[in-house]
């Protein structure tokens, strides 16, 4: 077994990151990233509702999910 090289890191701009959040929210939860963030912050969605909810919520900056 040969030692492999390290995995690649792709750095995303804030705009690209927002786009990624939107894509993941649509793929995993069937809603836009904006709607997900709004509903999460309104308490309509609990971060522990499902593995997919937790996963997308973890992509949001912490300040976006502050109480």
């Amino acid at each position, binding site marked *: *077994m040969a030692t492999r*090289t*390290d995995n690649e*890191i*792709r*750095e995303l*701009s804030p705009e690209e990151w927002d786009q990624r959040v939107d894509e993941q929210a649509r793929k995993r939860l069937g809603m836009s990233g904006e709607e997900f963030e709004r509903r*999460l912050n309104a308490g309509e969605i609990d971060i522990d509702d499902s593995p997919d909810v937790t996963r997308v919520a973890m992509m949001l900056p912490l300040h976006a999910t502050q*109480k």
Partner: protein
Amino acid sequence: MPRRSKTPAEAVEHYRGRTVRLLSCVTSVHVVARAYHLSDTPHELELADTAKMHGGPLSIDVAEEYEVRQDADGWRVAILGYLYAIGYEGRELVSYHWHPSGHSPITWPHMHVAANVQVGDRWLGKVHLPTGPVGLERVVALAITELGAKPLRDDWERLIREAAAR
């Protein structure tokens, strides 16, 4: 001895390097990170997608939130939250969560297990089982040493030891 850096950028570089090396023990899926800016806090880093691990129907998913802090010895990265999940045959088997901000009253590190057991009116799989903070290196080690994931690099034990000692 935790590693300290001379600058915030160097601390982030060390942190990212450690994380991708750990993940490269079990997957070749790339990592995505929000571009680092000194004024932005906190930051996110995650696997681009749930990744199949070599050696069976196991998968892994990882997301971390972090910030750079300065102390008397220099700069270091502190983990502010995480999600580490191991799947089996397409379903989540066990996950380690820490999401101290937000609306959830569960602000302490916890885990979920995919146990189809009813406890009163709750399912064990929805119960937040308390843990201490869990490092990514322990999850990678769990996958390899106890769940049968095949390591993709031959220095995986060293990488796990080094990460645990940080």
